């Protein structure tokens, strides 16, 4: 997992680029680019979360809050004050990173389930603020009138245009993150996951690393939130509730948390399952969803990204 090979990445990039053309030709999947926009937005969050969980070994059940901070900063500043969306996006990321430092410094001293509860509590508190401060956030009914994005007069006003915008961000973030993983810092992170005491003894500043990764994941979530708000032109608090944080955790677990590809596979899978494929089961949808979770955790403990590895091991036997 240390080396990210170039070939799969190039194939994946090409697939993403040509996909809208394919979808245009096949009526059955005509709405898939729309789903892919959301999958891409979720990928931004899960890449950060994967780095935090799979590499630095820290759990967060509060990522929905950072997603929401990005979305609400963008939404409020553009819809109510008419500011430039790109500047708002940057402000959102700054705001998310400040909050992440304030929350992360005391929280990341906690371990295991205590950290899980602390981040969960933080997420719920932020959700309550979104819900209660109706004057700013529009309350539970949500905020309308968020403008779309444009760049030098070019409007991202169709599904396909937005699709390319979102996936441009995903690739930029993906490549940047791979660089981190393969650098000295990446090795330090994995060392923390294996043993905090040992890595600290060899001179790794454990708490600094943990906070930097936490802030990085918060910034990515905030970016995703801004992109979400400008795509839907609407946000409401229930999008950013604790169940979304749990959904992100499920994405990571299904995809495989020890592999950055896992973050992408998980985001894809959950997006398509919950937004499209499971509709077939109607009332039984949530039972099937739960069963899928159980089956994957039982038979694929390394997540779907672990399948090639499992096949390799199986062939070698």
């Amino acid at each position, binding site marked *: 997992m240390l080396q990210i090979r170039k070939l799969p990445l190039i194939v994946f990039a090409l697939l993403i680029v040509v996909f809208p053309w394919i979808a245009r030709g*096949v*009526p*059955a*999947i*005509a*709405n898939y680019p*729309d*789903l892919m926009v*959301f999958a891409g937005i979720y990928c931004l969050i899960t890449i950060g979360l994967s780095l935090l969980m799979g590499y630095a070994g820290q759990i967060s059940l509060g990522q929905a809050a950072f997603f929401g901070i990005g979305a609400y900063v963008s939404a409020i500043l553009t819809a109510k004050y008419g500011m430039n969306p790109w500047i708002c996006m940057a402000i959102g990321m700054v705001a998310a990173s400040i909050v992440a430092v304030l929350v992360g410094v005391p929280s990341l001293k906690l371990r295991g389930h205590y950290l899980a509860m602390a981040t969960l509590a933080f997420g719920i508190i932020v959700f309550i603020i979104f*819900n*209660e401060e*109706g004057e700013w956030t529009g*309350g*539970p*009914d*949500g905020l*309308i*009138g968020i403008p779309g994005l444009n760049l030098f007069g070019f409007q991202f006003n169709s*599904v396909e245009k937005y699709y390319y915008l979102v996936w441009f961000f995903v690739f930029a973030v993906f490549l940047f993150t791979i660089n981190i993983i393969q650098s000295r810092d990446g090795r330090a992170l994995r060392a923390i996951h294996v043993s905090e005491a040992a890595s600290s003894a060899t001179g790794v500043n454990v708490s600094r690393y943990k906070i930097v990764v936490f802030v990085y994941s918060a910034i990515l979530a905030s970016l995703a939130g801004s992109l979400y708000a400008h795509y*839907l*032109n*609407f*946000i*409401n608090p*229930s*999008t950013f509730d604790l169940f979304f944080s749990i959904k992100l955790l499920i994405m990571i677990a299904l995809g495989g948390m020890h592999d950055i590809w896992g973050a992408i596979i998980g985001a894809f899978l959950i997006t398509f399952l*919950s*937004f499209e494929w499971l*509709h077939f089961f*109607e*009332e039984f*949808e*949530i039972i099937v969803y739960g069963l899928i979770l159980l089956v994957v955790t039982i038979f694929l403990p390394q997540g779907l990204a672990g399948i090639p590895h499992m096949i390799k091991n199986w062939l070698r036997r």
Partner: protein
Amino acid sequence: MSKKFAIMAMVCLFCCGVLVAPALADSYKVGAVFSVTGRASFLGDPEKKTAELIADEINQKGGINGKKLELIIYDDEGDATKTNLAVKKLMTQDKVCVVIGPSLSGNSLAVVPLAEQYKIPLISCAASYKIVTDDAGKQRSWVFKVPQSDSMAVEAIFDHMKKKGIKKIAIISATDGFGKSGQSELVRLAPQYGLEIVADESYGPQDTDMTAQLTKIKGLTPQAIVNWSIGPPQVTVLRNYRDLGMTGIVFYQSHGFGSRKNIELAAGAAEGVYTPLGAVVTPEALPETHPQKKVTMEYTNQYTGKYREPVSTFGGHAWDALGLAVDALNAVGCDRAKIRDYLENKKGFVGQHGVFNFSPNDHNGLVWQDAFNMIVVKGGDWAMAD
């Protein structure tokens, strides 16, 4: 290689076949998005059942203008993202003539831009006035809604209070969209009716006990309490109110209380409670001369006959929305711009929640005096209040 190609080709053919097959030329497609499961399932569940009931009946009678009514229902599970995706799919892929729903105000607001963008009429089943009115106070051209605005329920309640000589009230509401919207309307309209609000409390939609909030209210001795919520907490709050022995204080529930199940669940605690309700839930209590007597009795008999459960306010919204859509299709066929114009000028549509009179300045078409009757719970059943 050739084998793979053959399989691919077969898969493609299959996909095309599946998609082409149901797209019959001689049917009118109506899309619906309801919160059938999830946090707002008490809205979407009766709405879906009602819509299916109506569609079946119409198709059994030979359809609309000889064409079948094809109803495509998606479940948004109370989630804004899903609602957005579902409505987009209905509008661009299923190519429906008109969309009814979503069930929740927030989710309806989430898809208002889509109706305007794709120029497809949308008849919402949610209450907020913001759904049909933009920030400048103008009606959105492609969006209509059938439920009464919260302000109408508030006016019905306040009018009743005025008649009873009530001056000092307390508000208690849930922190969800329904509760918050009602709460803001209560606060906004109270001064117009000379009412003083001494307490403005709230609780979570999943809370198990509201005694603390009511205790605070009890200490402030208002003459009446208005509760604004839907689902189980409106029963819990009523029980806590009884437990605290707040007998001197009149209790008003919002129109969300409109299901007989709530009286049952309150186990006696609902006795004497006032609530403004649309005709749909109280057809038996209506006088024979009431314009809605016939449609509401029919709907009640059909619904309870088929599903063995009492009708609710929310199923009535789906009846009104689909009824209007069918009426428009009947008159102008599947021409979206004509449907929009037809709905905008529709007068005298007798629905479950009132007689609708739409106009370019009013995409809701209801006035509170028509849309609500003040109901009191008497002997475990609804009765007209005086």
